[in-house]
């Protein structure tokens, strides 16, 4: 599943031609059945928003829905909006990547498990996701309440007239002690450009990293370190995509039994422990098994 979807999601995001290039596949009958698109929302506010929408409006089962369906749905939404700006494109790549991350988390540790512990683990994952969706929904509704309060408050305007001229003589001289030099300095402070916010350039300068490369890097790093946290492993990575690709690489190694993963608390740092190469497999074969690109 992941192979196809990773490729499509990122290709779409990197396409410099905008909406024309982003036209998703028309979608088979399955797509039409699962996602009858009658969307009121404009742009989804992140992956949880999209998931919430898909689940509550379409009543779909996320395990049944393929990632490509979700991405198609998103492409349909983008087309409906009828415009393509950088923000939307960035958002799209982000959503696609995060969905891949979420989906991979459910899929990689194995679909057919007999082990009870693992089965429980899957339920935990599901509960975690459920709790995050509920949290997302809670703040969405809270935001609407804030909006209503603000809309009501704006109907009453405060008095701001201040002192009238009768009191001008006693108003303190606010300019006492202000010299032309101080004013000059204040201007320079105000006019000096503030640090320009870093612009995410996913869509114009695609990050060319593959999970394969990431696995190789990890195979180099992990045996030496033995035990590391995910945070340590991703220190210095600037792009979110790089972090996600590293994460996918870790899952791959986990699947192969080369590492163990532990997370002490929800949102806690992921502890990565090197277990050694499974069997007498050569690291090279492990790398070769990995084909998909990020």
């Amino acid at each position, binding site marked *: 599943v992941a192979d196809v979807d990773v490729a499509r999601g990122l290709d779409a995001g990197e396409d410099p031609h905008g909406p024309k290039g982003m036209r998703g596949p028309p979608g088979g009958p399955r797509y039409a059945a699962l996602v009858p698109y009658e969307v009121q929302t404009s742009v989804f506010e992140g992956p949880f928003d999209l998931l919430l929408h898909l689940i509550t409006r379409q009543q779909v089962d996320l395990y049944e829905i393929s990632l490509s369906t979700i991405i198609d749905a998103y492409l349909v939404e983008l087309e409906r909006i009828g415009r393509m700006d950088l923000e939307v494109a960035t958002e799209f790549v982000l959503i696609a990547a995060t969905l891949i991350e979420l989906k991979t988390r459910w899929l990689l540790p194995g679909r057919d498990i007999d082990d009870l512990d693992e089965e429980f683990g899957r339920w935990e994952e599901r509960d975690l996701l459920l709790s995050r969706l509920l949290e*997302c929904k*809670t*703040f969405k509704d809270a935001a609407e*309440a804030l909006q209503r309060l603000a809309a009501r408050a*704006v109907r*009453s305007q405060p*008095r701001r*007239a201040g002192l009238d001229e009768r009191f001008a003589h006693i108003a303190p001289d606010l300019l006492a002690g202000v010299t032309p030099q101080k004013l000059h300095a204040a201007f320079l402070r105000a006019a000096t450009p503030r640090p320009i916010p870093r612009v995410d350039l996913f869509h114009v300068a695609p990050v060319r990293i593959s999970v394969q490369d990431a696995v190789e890097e990890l195979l180099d790093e992990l045996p030496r370190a033995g035990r590391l946290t995910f945070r340590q492993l991703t220190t210095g990575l600037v792009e979110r995509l790089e972090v996600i690709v590293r994460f996918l690489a870790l899952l791959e190694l986990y699947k192969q039994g080369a590492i163990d993963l532990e997370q002490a608390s929800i949102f806690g740092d992921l502890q990565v422990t090197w277990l050694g190469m499974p069997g007498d497999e050569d690291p090279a074969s492990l790398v070769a098994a990995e084909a998909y690109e990020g």
Partner: protein
Amino acid sequence: MASEEQRAIEAILMVAEEPIEPNLLAQLLEISQERVSQLCTELAAAYDAEDRGFVLVKVAGGYRFQSHEDLAAYVERFVLEGQSARLSAAALETLAIVAYKQPVSRAQVAAIRGVDVDAVMRTLAQRGYIAEVARDPGPGQAVLFGTTTMFLEKLGLDTIDDLPPLGDFVPGPEMVEVLEQGLRPSAS
């Protein structure tokens, strides 16, 4: 008939440019803060009884005069300038998280939203709704954000405790059911 103390409060609030805290009024009138609260409550009730076009309210910790909400249509044109643009849905949700979780770090907000919130947080800070309020004492010393006095003013709240409780917005059992259904692994 308004008492001398009530008259003094009316006069001061008439020249004030922002909500005036009860302790300042108490100091200026040389009376207790409790007395100030009582007098202001009486004044507000009197304006209400007389059906005045203005009200006396407590907002962001202080008292101020403001136009009656019924008359919004008449005062609109006086407040056009400086009327700040509406917040986007993303900004509002981020603001809600900061309001209810404060003090909160950027990373904590991002974890809840599931997306990068840097740009939105910057906008909210620039527009004066949120501000850095502390540093996380833990390692990394992340900047912690909270809402501002202006946030309270914009929402017409006296204190942050006047926000509707977050519990009011926790989805009901039907919604939980729907979400749970959606996340149930299919038999394979």
